């Protein structure tokens, strides 16, 4: 039995299990058990993957398995992982695990909530393990649709509007993607039967005119998910309305699908066009970085601040990918992982704080450090990770990106890098502004004194997210070196024409 199939089967079984539970308590226990198993499976996957690597198995993708499910169109259920995907899977399982515990107190339609949440997770896992682009796309859609329900039903604020906006914009991205994927599919006939298989597609060198035409579709299609300026506006509204676990999963993992897809599909399969057109998207990504950071300064809603910060950080991912050298792309992947963890942590904490204060407006809060020290300290840690403090993961990612990008021989790219570095100051400004207003200073309301500090499930959720942030921050070289190996094929293909 291929361990990758387990990653799909466990969530599906969990969903079935939840259907048979009686009330919200049963549902959350079932979800927690399922996702714990999922986390364990993911850890085992990572360990066995690198054990195989160490044993000298050098295939680009391991744990391959293949099964045709639509013969006429040559669509397969084809799975396999490389050194990037295993880490993304681990990230996803950590975030989902933490997300379940962060939404421990959902009581309204809890079963349906957990079912949707886990379906969403299934889509994410399926996306990362798929090698067949059609199946990958299918899983991607599977992730988007529960999102609509989750925000629309369990959200807060203008939830219908936000859910609609988010879903429509992501669907718009999907529409572009379909065009791009079909382009790949039909042009693959140059080398045998038409196929969606990533590995086979990667052996084909597509004609340049075709690449030029389809690259923007694919890149923008995934870029919308990765919050590429100016198509990022779903992010603030969507995140602020979404329930905690959904924000976590969405910002933490789903936005990474965008960056991952840009790299794995758009740039990997259409390398010449990527080289040729990178400058346009590089400008947009640079704007995202600075613009997102400045946008965050002025916001008052905690989730808005974090959403804009995500725009900035995810812009950094795309920025680094477009620099197209090993170091910067390595940094991009580390940034995906790091941002996934810390933004999930942020949203988890915001959800927990919101659950106590019932407001997210930072002007109305203050002095929370005195009453809920655990959550506040965790918030400070998340903030420090976000502004790139050494010893936490954000620093590793940012520095790898900046140094990698600055190695680019072209002056334009280096100037863009310098512009991007300014974000570290702006980030510091908005993070400290939030920390100062929210946690420090005097307590605003008397009732705040009554707040209980973190419950056990909240602690689990927070600790599970902080640990990897600190581990990456302290000991990045293992992650970094495995990623460097895994990036080789992509880099080779990208630079083959130069």
């Amino acid at each position, binding site marked *: 039995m291929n361990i990758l199939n387990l990653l799909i089967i466990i969530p599906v079984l969990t969903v079935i299990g939840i259907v048979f539970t009686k009330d919200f308590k049963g549902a959350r226990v079932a979800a927690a058990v399922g996702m714990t198993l999922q986390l364990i499976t993911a850890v085992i996957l990572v360990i066995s993957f690198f054990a195989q690597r160490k044993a000298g198995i050098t295939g680009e993708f391991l744990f391959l398995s293949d099964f045709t499910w639509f013969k006429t169109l040559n669509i397969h259920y084809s799975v396999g992982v490389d050194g990037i995907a295993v880490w993304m899977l681990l990230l996803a399982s950590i975030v989902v695990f933490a997300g379940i515990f962060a939404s421990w107190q959902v009581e309204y339609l809890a079963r349906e909530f957990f079912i949707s949440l886990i379906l969403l997770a299934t889509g994410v896992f399926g996306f990362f393990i798929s090698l067949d682009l059609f199946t990958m796309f299918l899983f991607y859609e599977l992730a988007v649709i529960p999102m609509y329900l989750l925000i629309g039903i369990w959200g807060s604020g203008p939830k219908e509007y936000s859910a609609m*906006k988010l879903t429509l914009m992501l669907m718009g991205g999907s529409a572009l993607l379909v065009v791009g994927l079909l382009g790949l599919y039909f042009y693959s006939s140059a080398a045998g039967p038409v196929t969606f298989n990533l590995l086979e597609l990667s052996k084909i060198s597509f004609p340049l005119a075709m690449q030029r035409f389809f690259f923007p579709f694919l890149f923008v299609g995934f870029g919308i998910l990765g919050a590429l*300026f100016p198509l990022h506006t779903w992010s*603030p509204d969507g995140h602020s309305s979404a329930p905690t676990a959904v924000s976590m999963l969405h910002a933490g993992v789903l936005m990474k699908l965008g960056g991952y897809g840009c790299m794995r599909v758009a740039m990997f399969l259409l390398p010449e066009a990527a080289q040729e057109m990178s400058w346009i998207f590089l400008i947009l990504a640079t704007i995202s970085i600075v*613009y997102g950071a400045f946008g965050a300064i002025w916001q008052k809603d905690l989730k808005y601040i974090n959403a804009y910060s995500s725009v900035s950080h995810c812009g950094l991912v795309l920025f680094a990918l477009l620099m197209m050298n090993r170091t910067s792309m390595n940094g991009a992947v580390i940034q995906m992982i790091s941002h996934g963890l810390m933004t999930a942590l942020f949203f988890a904490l915001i959800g927990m704080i919101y659950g106590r204060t019932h407001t997210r407006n930072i002007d109305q809060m203050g002095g929370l450090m005195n009453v809920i020290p655990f959550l506040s300290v965790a918030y400070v840690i998340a903030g420090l990770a976000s502004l790139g403090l050494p010893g936490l993961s954000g620093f590793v990612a940012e520095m790898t990106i900046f*140094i990698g990008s600055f190695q680019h021989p072209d002056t334009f790219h280096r100037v863009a890098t310098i512009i991007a570095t*300014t974000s*570290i100051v702006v980030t510091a400004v908005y993070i*400290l502004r939030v920390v100062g207003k929210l946690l420090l200073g005097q307590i605003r309301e008397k009732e705040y004194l009554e707040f209980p500090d973190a419950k056990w499930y909240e602690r689990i959720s927070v600790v599970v997210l902080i640990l990897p942030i600190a581990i990456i921050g302290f000991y990045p070289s293992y992650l970094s070196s495995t990623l460097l190996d895994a990036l080789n094929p992509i880099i080779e293909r990208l630079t083959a024409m130069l």
Partner: protein
Amino acid sequence: MNYSLTILILLIPFATFLFNGLVGMKFKPIVSGLIGTIGLGVITLLAYLTAWQYFFVDGMVGGSFPKVIAMSMEWLRLTDALRIQIGILLDPISVMMLVVITTVSFMVHIYSLGYMKGEKGFERFFSFLSLFSFSMLGLVIATNIFQMYIFWELVGVSSFLLIGFYYSKDSAVAASKKAFIVTRFADLGFLIGILLLSYFTQTFDFKVLTGTDQSIFAQTAGVSFLGMSVMTWAALLIFMGGAGKSAMFPLHIWLPDAMEGPTPVSALIHAATMVVAGVFLVARMFPVFYFQAPDALTVISYVGGFTSLFAAAIACTQYDIKRVLAFSTLSQIGYMMLALGVSGYGGHEGVGYMASMFHLFNHAMFKALLFLGAGSIIHAVHSNVMQDMGGLRKYLPITHITFLIACLTIAGVPFLSAFFSKDEILVAAYEHNKLLFAVEFLVAGLTAFYMFRLYFNIFWGKETHYHHTPHESPKTMTIPLMILALGSVFAGYIPFSKLVTSDSMPFESHMDFGIAIPSVLIGLTGILIAWILYKKESKIPERISKSLGGFYQAVYHKFYIDEVYMFITKKIIFNCIARPVAWFDRHIVDGTMNGIGWITVTSSRNIKGMQSGNLPQYGMVFVLSAIILVLIFSFLI
């Protein structure tokens, strides 16, 4: 002989940080305090042993002190050439800094046991102190510029945490925020400098960068930007980082506000150790500056000179004793920067470099002593404004004596430590640039004046009526004062020119009495003026300040630099950038998206009128369309 134990210098404070931070609250507060203090005691011992071994046991190799890599491990591989190492580099300045940091930090730890007693968050305080010690030690023993940057950031954050220690106080929160953001802004320059440097040289390593092989800079030849060579840019940007940490003009604004932190923190971080990180950085990179970017050195010397004059002037007008000391710190760091700026390389040419390090060493001792003394005073009278004090010499005898020693030292009274180092600095300045020499000469007088203004106002002057009779601080506080006082007196007799020099080769330095005597005289003049004005209560100071009018006001308000910054950040950055960006995002970008949605909705709303539910209408449309289709198909095609 190896230095494998030096690794403990990093590990112990980190361990105590984790212990106090994670489980410290489970024990009695004093446990955390003792653990932190003992840990620091151990590494102080280690630092002294290392220094002893480095300077006196292993000694020189081939006529100069070698750069010893005691330990090095790869932390992160960025490219094949650029790898971030975490390691321990021992050379004269890093060993000297080890001694300075551990000494002051140890004293501050002991002092804090008494000063912070009973404060909420005692264990947090000690855990932050450990974090700071860890970061600062990591900074000085960095083997490469990137490791330095890593610890540089950590130092910044521990400073932020410690300034904001009283987090319920809004002013403390604001000050910590300001400190962090200003230094962060400076660090941006540092980072870009590192990027430039590493791009052209393909190395982070200090040993390579400051080594004799200049071929690594071959790439930079002829590359220039806006009329300055790329190395000048890199050097200036790196100096910008240093200027931020060392609070050089115009990035000095955070330091006076940073006095919101607990006084031991001010002593440790904002007087003795962290703020000299910038000086240390320039010293560390000195060969790069000297050979590749001499223009940058000139800039450094002028910035240092200006800051020292500027800060000394402000110090004369302030009433908050900690702020006076803060401005005095600025002024003294300006001295050190200037000394580096005017220094040459090698032998007697490098006297400025040597003097700067020498002054750094002495300054750490006497400024820590001043701050701790101030802490002791504040502890006694629960205020840090000069007007609330007076005649304290009777109540606080030990504090009085040690404070007086520190004041005398900083004023440059002969045979106390600062006399020697200041003299060297003046010599270096005199040889290099007469204008800067004149400035420094003036500043020497101002320094003596404002220090004794402080001294007389606190310990002499009119007897203020106190609510509680002030009493001398406990032993945990006075013992560090006494030890530091000894340091202030005798540190000057360390033969620095034999140990810490620009090219690690010893040279003979000697007193230049032509400069020493006038500088002592101007110092004494300053003291004398302060004596006349402040020994007894008098109206003269008030009249003088009145007669100076607008100028006095400008100085008192620190030349309105803070206001300018507030204007820039609040008005320009917040209102003119962030706000429009937020608006733009919500209304233009998002508006476009919503507009697309609106168009869809509106058009569908208009179309839905056709779906009227009116059967005859449907029938009509159906038949009409059928007729039209028949027409088209049978007659047109």
